[in-house]
């Protein structure tokens, strides 16, 4: 099913759709409040964009720099071409140390690689420790948002889930109560884990370390207890200098949730005592995007989620309607770059309102990318023959003004005479929930000509 069909399902529950829209708009408003209080906001965005552009254009250099400096500090660096190799590296690291229990903090990359099912198939117990991720993991659902994984759920849904899995009180869906229950449940998992895996927000080439930002403290707790720390990092996460973080930390949390900074912004340049720290650098299709002038900016993304929160389509269609790991504008462009055929409806799940491009802290031209992806959909013959034929005919008409005038005239003549049940039959998708405009007797051109003749 494509986005329109899945979106329709989501919209069908009007009350929930409205609630979803409001909940996420609330996050957008918090972001606005934080942003409008900072005079240098637009400067920060511009600098961030320059840093990212520079880095991506010298990505090979910075990756090697990162590797060298990380190794110098005693960290292990691995390279994975694709999801499969990434998963194998993780599994091997775990098996070689006899690790059976893995705690994970948020990492969209491991979602993209479908790491959890792979590990579980191989006998590893995987626990997602971010509260939102744990909720969706228990429900066996993918996250519906990159920052707020369980934003599609109401507290009653969470209450029921916890009732079943964590044995919480029946009917108690107080967020504080449920959060405490999760805390107690996950504390045990943290203390018993053999290994911990984190994502990476930034990899610093200059120092060879990584930065992970969380509010819950779950990433830090995991990797500060278990001896083995594995960090999965996409190649685009590299920044050149430590000081670049002054720009990105100011942008990230404000864009994501409206906070000035996340509760924890942790810089890892070492494992714990007697521990090991491994960083897996993952490509999985990213380096192919580099060659495309139209889309390479999508590699600048810092995964703040602001474009998702602002997207009027996302807010009303829900994260699962995209059918891709990352929803919303950024997910639609990344998904289309990755596999256009599988994701051919995503570039069209957008009104081209351009809110995303203007909210994005690193100024990615998101809506233009979706506009360009549409051309590739057509070029590859994926638009659907009916749609394409209509537009071809329309173009042909538009190339011939007399034909254009004639068809307009006919429409104005015929449409008003049609009985309602024919005019509003099934093929009139516009008319399902909207009236058609009232057709006038004369076109502007006709009126204009009349007027000129009278002159």
């Amino acid at each position, binding site marked *: 099913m494509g986005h329109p069909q899945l979106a329709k399902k989501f919209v069908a529950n009007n009350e929930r759709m409205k609630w979803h829209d409001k909940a996420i708009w609330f996050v957008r408003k918090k972001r606005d409040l934080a942003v409008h209080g900072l005079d*240098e906001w637009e400067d920060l965005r511009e600098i961030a964009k*320059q*840093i990212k552009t*520079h880095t991506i*254009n*010298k990505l*090979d250099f910075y*990756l*090697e720099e990162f590797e060298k400096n990380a190794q110098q*500090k*005693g*960290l292990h660096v691995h*390279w994975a*071409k694709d999801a499969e190799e990434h998963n194998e590296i993780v599994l091997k690291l775990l098996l070689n140390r006899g690790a059976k229990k893995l705690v994970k903090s948020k990492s969209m990359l491991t979602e993209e690689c479908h790491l959890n099912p792979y590990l579980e198939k191989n006998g590893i117990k995987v626990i997602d*420790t*971010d*509260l*939102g991720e744990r*909720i969706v993991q228990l429900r066996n659902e993918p996250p519906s948002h990159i920052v*707020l994984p369980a*934003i599609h*759920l109401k507290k009653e849904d969470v209450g029921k889930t916890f009732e079943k899995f964590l044995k919480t009180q029946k009917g108690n869906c107080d*967020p*504080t109560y449920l*959060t405490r229950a999760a*805390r107690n449940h996950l504390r045990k998992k943290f203390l018993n884990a053999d290994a911990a895996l984190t994502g990476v927000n930034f990899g*610093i080439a200059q120092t060879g*370390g990584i930065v992970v930002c969380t509010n*819950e*403290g*779950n990433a*830090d*707790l995991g990797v*500060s*207890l278990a001896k083995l720390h594995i960090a999965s990092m996409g190649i685009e996460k590299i920044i*050149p200098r*430590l*000081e*670049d973080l*002054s*720009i990105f*930390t*100011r942008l990230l949390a404000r864009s994501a949730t409206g906070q*000035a*900074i*996340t*509760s*924890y912004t*942790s*810089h*890892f*340049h*070492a494992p714990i*005592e007697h521990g090991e720290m491994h960083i897996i*650098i993952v*490509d999985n299709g990213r*380096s*192919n995007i*580099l060659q495309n*002038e139209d889309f390479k900016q999508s590699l600048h993304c810092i995964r703040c989620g602001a474009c998702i929160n602002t997207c009027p389509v996302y807010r009303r269609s829900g994260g699962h309607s995209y059918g891709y790991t990352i929803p919303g504008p950024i997910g639609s462009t990344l998904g289309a770059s990755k596999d256009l055929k599988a994701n051919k409806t995503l570039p069209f799940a957008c009104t081209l309102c351009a809110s995303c491009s203007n909210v994005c802290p690193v100024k990615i031209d998101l809506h233009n990318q979706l506009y360009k992806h549409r051309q590739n959909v057509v070029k590859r013959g994926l638009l659907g023959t009916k749609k394409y034929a209509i537009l071809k005919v329309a173009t042909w008409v538009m190339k011939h003004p007399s034909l254009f005038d004639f068809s307009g005239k006919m429409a104005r003549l015929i449409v008003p005479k049609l009985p309602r049940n024919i005019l509003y039959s099934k093929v009139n998708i516009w008319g399902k929930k909207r009236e058609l405009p009232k057709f006038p007797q004369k076109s502007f051109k006709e009126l204009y000509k009349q007027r000129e003749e009278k002159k």
Partner: protein
Amino acid sequence: MTSRESILNNIKKNIPSSTIELPQTNIAHAIYKDKNEKFKTSLASVGGNAVWLEDGNIDEFVRKNYSNLEIIVSTCKEITCTNRDANKPNTPHALENVDLAIIEAEFGVAENGAVWVKNSNNRHRALYFLATQLLIIVNKNNIVDTMHEAYERIEFNQAGYGTFISGPSKTADIEQSLVIGAHGPTSACVLFV
């Protein structure tokens, strides 16, 4: 060809030859007339609190404010009101039941109420996250305006760990309701001395 080579080769093949210079990061930024006040309100907005200790008697402060707690540990040598040595156990797991951890931070950041913690005296960094409550000691002269100044004070020439901590741990993953105390501390007080 190793994966490393193949990734790097593919990048080399695909990146455009144009380069753009790395920009300066020290742009003109917010300067706060009253850094203390700004720090205080920033921290309060994320559920933490800041206190300026006039007499410098931390022990007294702890006795007064945390009298009911059982296990108190500290990474600051000057503090005597603790009852366990955080560095003694060989595994961090032993710190599981710490009620209060008193730790040191190098400086605070006014714009966001964060403090920079890179405490080489501390053997187990898990302490910062296992303890139910945190008391963070900072020299009262060490508050900077923004992250720009903050990063001027930070380096990682040696291997190590450092973190900005802003308030207690928190989550809003259930219906956007803010709950203070997720996996880490449920309260965080920054004490300026």
